[in-house]
C-alpha cells in the first residue's frame, strides 16, 4: 500500500523564524521523492511535519487524501528513519525490528516470524539475536529500514540516513535503498544534502533554499534545466559568467558577459523569464566545455591553462580567463591526450549554446 502526500500552502514558523514557507507540493504514491538542499534549508522541518512531530503553522498535510491535522506521529501511516537511526540500544536486532508489532500486541512467535522475513529482505538473515551495538554501520542502516518497514507504513520518511556512512558503503546503500523501495512499492520521501544521492535514487527531486522550494522535477530536468541560479549552482558544478541580456529569441538568449558574448538556452523551467537588458548568469558545466575547433563560430572563450588535477577517469583542467574572477573548470575524459596540454598555454574553449544555461540573476548556493 502506498499513499500520496500533499502539502497545501504549508508554513512552518519558529517564533519569527520561518523554516518553511508556502510549500505547495504533491508526492505521488509509490514514488521515490527527495528533498535536496543545504543544511538549514528547512527540509528536515518538512519531514518532521509530515511525520507528525511538528505542527505546521499554516496549511494542510494530506496523506492518502486524509488531512493529518491533529493526528499524532504514532497514528500516522508514516515511518521515519532518523539521521542517527535511533535504534533501541537495549534491544536485540529482532526486537528492534518488530517493535511496531510489539506495541500493537502481536505475540512473540508471530513477531519472530515477521522479523525473519524482514531480515531476509534486508539481507541479514540469522542476525536477529545480536545486539544493535554488535552490528556495523551498514547493517544498522538496514535494520533501521527493516524496523520502519515492519510498521507497514504507506509512506517511509528518511532523514539523511546515509550521511554517517563512508563513501563506498553510501554508494552501495543507494542501490540497496532503491531496490528495497521497488520491492515494497511504498512512497519514500528522502532528505539529503548530497545531490548524488538525490539524483541517483529519486523519481523526483525538490530543491530547497531558505524554506522555499526552488524547483521540483526529475533528476535530468534538475541537472540540465535548472530553474534558478541557486539550483544551477547547488546541483552539480558550473562555471558562471555574469552579463547583460542582449536579446531573447526562441528559447535562446544572447548575453554580453565579462568574458565575451555568449549564447545560451533559457530553460522553460526558469522561475523568472529573461528580458532584454536584465542582468543574467550564464552557466556552463565543466563537462560541457571543450577545446574549440576551427568550425566553432560562437561561444569561444580565450583561456590560459593554470592547473590540472588527475582523477583517474577524468582530468580536471583549470583555466584563467580574462574577465572572470574565478578559475574556469573543465572536465575531460581521460583519453590519453593529456600530453598535448601544457601549463601556461593559451587556448580557446567552447560550450555549445544548448548546453549553456542563461538565468536571471538571483541568489547562488554557498561555495
Amino acid at each position, binding site marked *: 500500500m502506498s499513499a500520496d502526500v500533499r502539502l497545501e500552502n504549508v508554513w512552518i514558523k519558529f517564533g519569527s523564524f520561518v523554516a518553511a514557507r508556502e510549500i505547495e507540493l504533491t508526492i505521488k504514491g509509490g514514488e521515490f521523492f527527495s528533498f535536496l538542499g543545504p543544511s538549514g534549508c528547512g527540509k528536515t522541518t518538512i519531514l518532521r511535519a509530515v511525520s507528525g512531530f511538528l505542527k505546521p503553522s499554516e496549511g494542510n498535510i494530506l496523506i492518502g487524501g486524509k488531512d493529518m491535522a491533529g493526528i499524532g506521529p504514532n497514528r500516522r501511516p*508514516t515511518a521515519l528513519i532518523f539521521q542517527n537511526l535511533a535504534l533501541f540500544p537495549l534491544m536485540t536486532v529482532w526486537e528492534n525490528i518488530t517493535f511496531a508489532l510489539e506495541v500493537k500486541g502481536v505475540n512473540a512467535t508471530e513477531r519472530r516470524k515477521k522479523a525473519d522475513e524482514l531480515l531476509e529482505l534486508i539481507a541479514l538473515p540469522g542476525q536477529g539475536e545480536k545486539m544493535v*551495538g554488535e552490528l556495523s554501520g551498514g547493517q544498522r542502516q538496514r535494520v533501521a529500514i527493516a524496523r520502519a518497514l515492519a*510498521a507497514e507504513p504507506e509512506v517511509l520518511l528518511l532523514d539523511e540516513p546515509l550521511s554517517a556512512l563512508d563513501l563506498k558503503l553510501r554508494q552501495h546503500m543507494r542501490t540497496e535503498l532503491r531496490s528495497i523501495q521497488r520491492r515494497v512499492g511504498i512512497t519514500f520521501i528522502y532528505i539529503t544534502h548530497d545531490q548524488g544521492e538525490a539524483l541517483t535514487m529519486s523519481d523526483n527531486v525538490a530543491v530547497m533554499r531558505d524554506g522555499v522550494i526552488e524547483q521540483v522535477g526529475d533528476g535530468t530536468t534538475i541537472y540540465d534545466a535548472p530553474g534558478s541560479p541557486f539550483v544551477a549552482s547547488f546541483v552539480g558544478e558550473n562555471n558562471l559568467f555574469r552579463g547583460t541580456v542582449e536579446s531573447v529569441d526562441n528559447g535562446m538568449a544572447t548575453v554580453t558577459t565579462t568574458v565575451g558574448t555568449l549564447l545560451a538556452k533559457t530553460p522553460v523551467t526558469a522561475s523568472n523569464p529573461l528580458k532584454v537588458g536584465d542582468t543574467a548568469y550564464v552557466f556552463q558545466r565543466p563537462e560541457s566545455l571543450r577545446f574549440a575547433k576551427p568550425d566553432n563560430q560562437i561561444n569561444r572563450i580565450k583561456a590560459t591553462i593554470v592547473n590540472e588535477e588527475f582523477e583517474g577517469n577524468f582530468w580536471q583542467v583549470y583555466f584563467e580567463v580574462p574577465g572572470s574572477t574565478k578559475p574556469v573548470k573543465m572536465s575531460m575524459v581521460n583519453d590519453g591526450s593529456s600530453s598535448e596540454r601544457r601549463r601556461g598555454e593559451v587556448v580557446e574553449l567552447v560550450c555549445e549554446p544548448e548546453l549553456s544555461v542563461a538565468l536571471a540573476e538571483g541568489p547562488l548556493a554557498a561555495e
Partner: protein
Amino acid sequence: MITDRLGKYAVLLFVVMFFAYLFGPLIIMSITAFNSADFPRVSPWDCFSVEWFDVLVNDDKLMDGLRNSLIIGIGVVALSVPIGLAGALMLMQISPRVRPWYYTIVVSPILIPGVVLGISTLIFWDRLGAMFNANYESIFYDGIFLTIVGQTTFISAYSMLVFISRLQRFDPALEEAALDLGASHVQTFRKILLPFLKPAIGSAAVLAFLASFENYNTTVFTITSESTLTTVLASKVRYGINPSISALAVTIVVLTLFAAAIMEIKKRRTDAFEKAISKAVIEGTDALSKLGRKSNRLIDPAFAMIIVIFLAGLGTAYYSGTVGVDECKTSVKEAKKLETQRRVDERRKKQMFEGAQPGTQQAAPNTTAPSTGKAKGTEGYQGIFAPTNLESQVKGDSGAANDAATDDAPAKGTEGYQGIFAPTNLESQVKGEESSN
C-alpha cells in the same frame, strides 16, 4: 636531583597521611570492636573477643532503632525515587527559559539545613493534625511517618540529580522513534525510557537508602518518641559508650566492602563483555559466544572466592574470639586488681607523707598525678574519662577499684571546678536531698 627525590618523598608522605586521615579512625574503631575491655580502646589491649557483637545483637534499643531505620529507609526509597524521576523528567520537558528557576527550586531542599527541614516538617504536620483534630496516636504525630516525609523532602532531590545526569545522555530521538512506530506515550515510557533509566533507578534507590539510613539532623526532630539507629547511637555516645558500637561499625564496614567487591566484579565483567562485543564487531570473530557462555555460568569463581574468604574470616574471628576468652579475661582482671592495689598503696603512702606537711595540701593533686600512671588523664577532666573510672561504675562491687576511684575523683574535682563533675558528686547530692527530705 635532591629536590626531585625530596618532592617524591613529600608526595609519598602526603599520600600516607591522607590515607591515614581517611582510614585511621575506621581502622582504630574496627580494632576496638574486638577488645574485651568495657570502653572502646586499643591500648591497653585486654583480650581478643567477639562478645561485643553478642552485646550488639542483644541490645534491644539498638535493634529497635535499626529496624526503624530500615523501615524508614525503604519508605524514603519508595517515595523519593518516583518523585525524583518525575522531577527530572519535568526538567527535561519544560522550556529552557524557566529551566534554571525550576532547577533552583527543586534543588533547594539540599541546600536547606536538615535541622530546618526537620523542624518545619514537625510543625507542618502538627498544624495539619491540629486542623483535623487528630490525636497523638494518629499519623500526624507518628515518628516513622514524619521521618519518612521529612527525609524525602531533600533525598528526592538527590535522586532527581541522579536521574538528571542519566537523562542527559538519553537520545530523545529514541522516544520519537518509538512514537513514530506506533507506540503510545505510556508504551514509550515503559519500553524505552524506563529500561534506559534502570541503572539510575538502582543508584538513586541505593543513594536514597543510604542518605536516609545515616541521616541524623532531620531525623532527630521528626522521629518524636520513636528512635532510629542514628538517634540511638547519638544517645549512647552521650550517656555511655561501649564497644558494641564499634562492633556495629565493623559490621557495616564489612557489609559495605562485601557489596563493593561484588559490584566491582560485576562492573569488570560487563566491561569485558562490551570490549568483547566491539572486538567481535571489528574482527567478526566468535569471541562473543564464548564469553556469553562463560557469563551464563551459575556461580562465578570470583564470587565464590569472595564468599569463601568472607566466611573463613567470620569463622576465624568467631573461633578465636570465643574460645579461651574467659580465661584471658580472668587473668587480665587479676592483673588489674594487682595494679590498682599497688597504686592505692602508693597513694596512701603519699597522703600520709602530705599529711605531715599541711602547707602543701593545695598543690597535692598536681604532684600526685604524674606518679599515678594510668590515672594521669584524670588531671584536666576530673576523672570522667579515666578508663578505670567507668569500670568502677560498672563493676561497683569491685572493692579496691571503687576505693581508688572515689578516693581519686573528689580530691581532683575540688581543684578547678569544685567537684561538680565528679561522678560521685551527683550521687551524694541526691542522697543529701533525700536525707533532707
